[in-house]
């Protein structure tokens, strides 16, 4: 548009042309800046709204989870696995050579000190986001005794670390803390 406008005012010579061109270019540029500014709210409106951000913590009662059992809770509309590990499961996780893992982490790094039996992870496979099996009663735990994702065959061990299959990372440990011995606050 500025180019066209300059053609239109080309009949005027010398300094006049430059000053006039400048105004036309400035007008078009300012309009462009305005158009870009309008994009900001139009894009920003799709980001999580205040009510979604506000529901970012959830409390879970873990008193009823017996050793060897697990439950699925919901946090940010996604499943969280809360698992009460048996001593054998902890041992089998400790036995693994950490350096041989795809995503090297010890079970201590993945649990809270003194509460190593409580394995709390997201129930979201790090491959493409399916919910792995193994937390519900009677579900397949996979060959490493942890979780097994049926979508693309990722297998997690008893510390929910990736051992086999396409997933790149261990199941994510969400931020959490023990409000008491029986209540965990996630988020």
């Amino acid at each position, binding site marked *: 548009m500025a180019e066209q*406008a300059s053609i239109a*005012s080309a009949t*005027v010579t010398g300094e006049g042309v430059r000053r*006039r061109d400048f*105004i*036309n270019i400035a*007008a078009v540029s300012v309009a462009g800046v*305005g158009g870009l500014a309008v994009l900001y709210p139009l894009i920003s409106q799709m980001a999580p709204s205040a009510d979604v951000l*506000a529901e970012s913590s959830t409390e879970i009662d873990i008193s009823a989870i017996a050793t060897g059992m697990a439950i699925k809770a919901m946090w940010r509309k996604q499943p969280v696995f809360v698992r009460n590990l048996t001593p054998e499961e902890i041992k089998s996780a400790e036995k693994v050579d950490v350096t041989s893992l795809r995503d090297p982490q010890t079970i201590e790094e993945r649990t809270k000190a003194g509460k190593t039996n409580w394995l709390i992870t997201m129930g979201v496979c790090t491959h493409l986001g399916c919910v792995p099996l193994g937390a519900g009663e009677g579900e397949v735990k996979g060959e490493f005794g942890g979780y097994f994702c049926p979508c693309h065959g990722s297998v997690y061990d008893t510390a929910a670390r990736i051992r086999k299959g396409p997933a790149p990372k261990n199941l994510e440990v969400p931020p959490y803390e023990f409000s008491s011995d029986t209540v965990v606050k996630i988020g």
Partner: protein
Amino acid sequence: MVRLFGPLVGLFFAVALFWSFGNGAYNAITQPTPATVEAEFHKHPKEISFSFDGPFGTFDRAQLQRGFKIYQEVCSNCHSLKQVAFRDLAALGYKEPEIKAIAKNWGNKAQTFDPKTGDRGERPNLPADHFPPVYYAGQGAPPDLSLITKARHGGGQYVYSLLTGYAEQAGYKNEKGEELLKKFPDAKTPDGLYFNPYFANLNLAMPAPLASDGQVTYSDGTTATVDQMARDVSAFLTWTAEPKLDKRKQTGWPVLGFLIFATVLAYLAKRNIWADKH
């Protein structure tokens, strides 16, 4: 065709309208509409000013906190505020622990339902929760107050006027000096209702909620006169209805400034381009 039927259709409507007009005029003369007590005695809201009036006005947070206290201690006994969440109180200047405490100690608890057992129960409110609904079994239907100032002509002025406008009906006169009960003896306020000329039909089920000075104790030391309390809660309810008022005006000014600048430039460019064509 059009020039033949057009005028006929036009005359048809005109005659039908004239017929309606004639009937209306005849009725207006033979049976004039009787004056109604609402038309003669209803009053428009008092003209008071608020900190958020006008294009530069903003909320006074201290006032909003005082108004919230009035809502909490007085209004919330009967009126819901269900569009507002506890977390929104951050805009009034409350810090997160304060908001948590307000939510947790709120008299009405959040309702819970366990879909497995079918048990219903309650739990303390969390900051993410909206103010729980208030169920009112008595006479009248107290409206939800979230949007009340946007849902009434006059907004905050209306709420203030209603709260301070209760009057004794016996001997009540309007600006013209006519006495209500003499002019409309049948319009006596029924038992259980209260006379208030700022209310649409003059009688409402709510007794004056702000009855005496000092009904609420303000923590910031402001003297809690009835007038002050009414102003504060009206300001608070303006905030509940339009929480983005401050941000709206703050955004508006730069946008307007930019547009004026751009329009002046556009004008110069237009004149420039047209210079050789006039």
